[in-house]
């Protein structure tokens, strides 16, 4: 299991978003955090890999298969991209929304395997009690949990999660990251999560990628990247690294010059 993006370039007619993205070899079964300031190109990067945007050049290789040369119908089975927002007032229940993501590429009928799979996943993310609720009635955090379920229910090999924890409370952030880490290891999938919370990334990610101005500035194991001066440079802040009692890194940031 491995994943590699080489020379990815993407521009809108008047604006270059991705200059020349090289991810290096990314391992399977590990949780990878994609970090970077706002408008660094993280979402565009994901969309290009998922085939929602057509990059001007570049290769995307997943498990020795060239994704960029694959028709979209085939690619969508291997790559699961979870967009940021989840706002819908549809009269659909949480169970239906999750089931939908699993069914729409397959046959029309719902089998008991399908429903059992959805049930297990809802239990695992601790939102089974919401199964019968309409999605429009949920809070932002609950919708985000549904969105994560909707991504994980798909049998993909590569998961691209755009800010999976941005609307969650502290406890749910930890639970979701823990679950993501476990599921990634179980399925030996490649999971890349775009995030803003450095402490959460430091605690749960095995591998960090730093992105800024449409380029990957650094990519490597969590400990290496946290210790590197590129981190502070990427965000334009001062970074102070500490170790908690359990050995995990804690990142303190302050504005440079203070």
């Amino acid at each position: 299991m491995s994943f590699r993006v080489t020379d990815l370039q993407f521009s809108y007619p008047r604006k270059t978003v991705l200059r020349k993205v090289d991810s290096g070899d990314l391992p399977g079964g590990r949780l990878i955090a994609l970090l970077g300031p706002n408008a660094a190109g993280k979402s565009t990067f994901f969309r290009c890999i998922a085939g929602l945007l057509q990059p001007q050049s570049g290769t995307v290789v997943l498990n020795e298969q060239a994704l960029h040369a694959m028709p979209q119908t085939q690619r969508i089975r291997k790559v699961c991209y979870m967009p940021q927002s989840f706002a819908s007032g549809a009269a659909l229940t949480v169970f239906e929304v999750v089931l939908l993501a699993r069914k729409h590429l397959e046959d029309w009928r719902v089998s008991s395997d399908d429903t059992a799979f959805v049930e297990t996943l809802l239990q695992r993310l601790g939102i089974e009690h919401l199964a019968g609720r309409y999605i429009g009635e949920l809070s932002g955090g609950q919708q985000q949990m549904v969105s994560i379920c909707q991504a994980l229910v798909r049998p993909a090999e590569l998961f691209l999660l755009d800010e999976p924890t941005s609307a969650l409370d502290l406890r749910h952030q930890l639970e979701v990251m823990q679950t993501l880490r476990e599921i990634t290891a179980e399925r030996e999938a490649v999971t890349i999560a775009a995030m803003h919370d450095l402490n959460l990334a430091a605690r749960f990610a095995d591998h960090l990628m730093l992105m800024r101005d449409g380029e990957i500035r650094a990519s490597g194991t969590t400990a290496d990247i946290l210790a590197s001066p590129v981190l502070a440079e990427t965000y334009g802040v001062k970074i102070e690294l500490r170790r908690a009692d359990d050995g995990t890194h804690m990142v303190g940031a302050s504005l440079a010059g203070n």
Partner: protein
Amino acid sequence: MNAYADAMTESTGSAMLYRRRSRHRGLMLLLAGVALLMSVFVDVGVGPGNYSLAQVFTVLADPLAHGPQLKVIVWDLRLPIALMAVLVGAMLGAAGAEMQTILNNPLADPFTLGISSAAAFGAALAIVLGVEVLPFGGNTLITINAFVFALFTASLLYLFTRLRGATSETMVLIGIALLFTFNALLGLLQYAATDVQLMQIVFWMMGSLSRASWDKLAICFVALVVVVPYFLYRSWALTALRLGDDRAASLGIDAQKLRIRILIGASLLAATAVSFVGIIGFVGLVGPHIARLLVGEDQRFFLPLSMLAGALMMSLTSLVSKSVTPGVIYPVGIITALIGIPFFISLILSVRRRNWQ
């Protein structure tokens, strides 16, 4: 085990709850089907002429059982009208359901995008300029003209959305522009029309089932058989569309392409319905709302129930239209609006409000 624990074991298992909900929704479809069947029977049984139900039903089985007069009444008048009500209701229900889905708008109905005004304009054009000139039957020309203009609007819309990108906002805005254009053109024709022609235009626009015939039934049936299976085939994708374009795209759905294809199907249904029976409001709007209320928006249930609800509404309307004043059959378009509006308002007041954002 106490009652509380029983209740707990009863309610756990979201998969089981989902299956139970699915069975419940299947039952709902069945009930609507039975209600529709009963309504059609009564619709055929009742009408001017004071024949007993028993007589009418014998004639259904054996056309000449009670003489040629009753055969004509049942087979050439009542049955086509009753079935036309069902087919037109189903067409409007299906078209309304999918228009609301692709436009992401609860106010959308089969005629939202100017299809009805285009059809009315086409009909008026035939009435004012063509009917007395062309030799072959006037009504056929009106129907064909209405149909052609309805489809012409749909293709204009298709063209514009191809140029500009088929988001629901563009579609609605362009649809409104087309609506006003055809309304203005219709006004112009009405201004130029003679008194007799004006009356004809007004009657055409009211919507009436009395123009039903077996040929038209066959055409409606074909339109349904061509379009509805495609809608059903794309059920999952259409359900996903309600989660927003972005999310649909992440699930591998080309929202714009899907929207345009569904638009073509829905336009075909709406154009066929409007050109045969005139403008019938509210069925295509309210039918899907009833369905959404009862089974939610899983298209595998939502679409069939929208059709059944539309068909049931039309069938009941047909019944009411000849029962209010004995001997008089009111245009159904008036009845649907009169019954539809209070019903619709009560629905708005009672239903969940959060289904649209």
